[in-house]
């Protein structure tokens, strides 16, 4: 077993698609890393970008926001708004030279258990390569 650095990834999952997708990954006995700390939200658009920011500044290795595929939102258009807000947050990170790769947006439907496991695995690997979030140890943050 890999005893190396295991990141903690804050995952905010919309209850209609992505959380159900994660559930399906579990009931299908698909393996995905324990690094994913899943939280259920009513809709990805319920997540104010400041919550993603808070997770980042609190030392989360990665912050994953997942919702229904564009066009399939349970509330019809919620995830279109999510996408714009996420683009804004990412642009802020890029402008300030922060690691925007620590923020991830993903569309995972309720039937995509395998996709959830794949995203969880790949994203965990990516964050492992990046190493620990520098904000975790900053005393003057």
């Amino acid at each position, binding site marked *: 077993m890999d005893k190396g650095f295991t990141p903690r990834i804050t995952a905010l999952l919309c209850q209609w698609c992505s959380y159900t997708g994660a559930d399906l990954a579990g009931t299908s006995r698909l393996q995905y890393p324990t690094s994913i700390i899943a939280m259920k939200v009513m809709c990805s658009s319920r997540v104010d970008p400041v919550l993603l920011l808070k997770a980042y500044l609190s030392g989360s290795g990665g912050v994953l926001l997942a919702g229904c595929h564009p066009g399939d939102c349970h509330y019809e258009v919620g995830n279109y708004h999510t996408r714009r807000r996420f683009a804004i947050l990412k642009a*802020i990170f890029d402008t300030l030279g922060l690691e925007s790769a620590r923020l991830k947006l993903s569309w995972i439907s309720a039937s995509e258990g395998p996709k959830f496991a794949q995203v969880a695995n790949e994203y965990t690997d990516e964050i492992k390569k990046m190493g620990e979030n520098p904000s975790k140890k900053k*005393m003057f943050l």
Partner: protein
Amino acid sequence: MSSINLDMSAPDGIIALLKYLLSSGKVSAVLVPRRNPDTGAYDIGLIADEAGLDSAAPVDPVMLANTGQILSSLTPAKRSLAVVLKPCELRAFVERVKREQGSLENVLTISYTCGGVFPLEKVIEESFADVIPNYLKRVASGEIVDGTRDTCRACEHFVPMNADVTISIAADAGSIAGCRIYLNTDRARELVGGLEGKQSDDEIDPAVTLKLAAKRKVEKEKLFNSLAPTGDGLDGVIEVFGKCVGCHGCGRVCPICYCLLCDFESRSFDYDLPYFEKELSGKGALRLPPDTIFFHLGRMTHMSFSCVGCGLCSDVCPVGIPVASMFKKVGEHTAALFDYVAGRDVEEKLPVMVYKEEEFSELG
């Protein structure tokens, strides 16, 4: 007819225009910056009587508060109101109107090509009044005046967008002895058309304003490049915002931040002992007050695309953080995502209120 020329300096011309509007009953009140001749203190006067205009200082390089913010409490106006405001203040007001925090109904907006304003610490100096004649001369000759706010020197939007009336000042050598009043809208022609003066079909010469805009653009690049962080990541952000004392003054003076119950001042971010214990166990030491950098970055996610770069936030910062420059820099990037320009058009929807089905496919 689209312009009226008066044989007096631009500031005097604006006062003459306001007097005309009040005396003819075209408007019931005017909102204009004033200077108290006894104390030298500036304010923004709401004036209904012509005599009150004697202390008006319509184009003095001072911004005490963003007039766009003040206008919110005066609109929707029941009776017509004339307002003298800087181009960025007008843009800020338009952004507020989009947020349903004001209305352009019954408001005659009078703006001018702006040379920028001085930081408040300069404005309160006793000798400040002596600075103004030289300032006006340099502005008229198309220069960027030293000592004005960082974001003013770097401002490319000094030609008012959508003002009913525009007065030509910046890069207009004629503005020292003459006042050119451009009437841009039907409302302006209806209310101001009767003002006595030489009428003509002039337009503001775009070649002249573009030249100044190009200079400002160079200044802007310089400013943005001088700002840490330039790709230094979290350390750079801590270097810039780490001095923050958490007073939230920048948010209070911001014309865009209108929320009465700001998220960052709500109980959501009031922490208790267990939170601090948890944080402490990871880091060994904590900076208090908490969430200062979080506040700035969070505010950027909420409003940066609407930032008009007025510079008030930098002015009120007690520890000298270049808040306005940072927000302007970030705001240009966030607004560019949507080809958005704050205050350009009141009909243009806020980028977070609308969406396109096909966009940002690279994100998820």
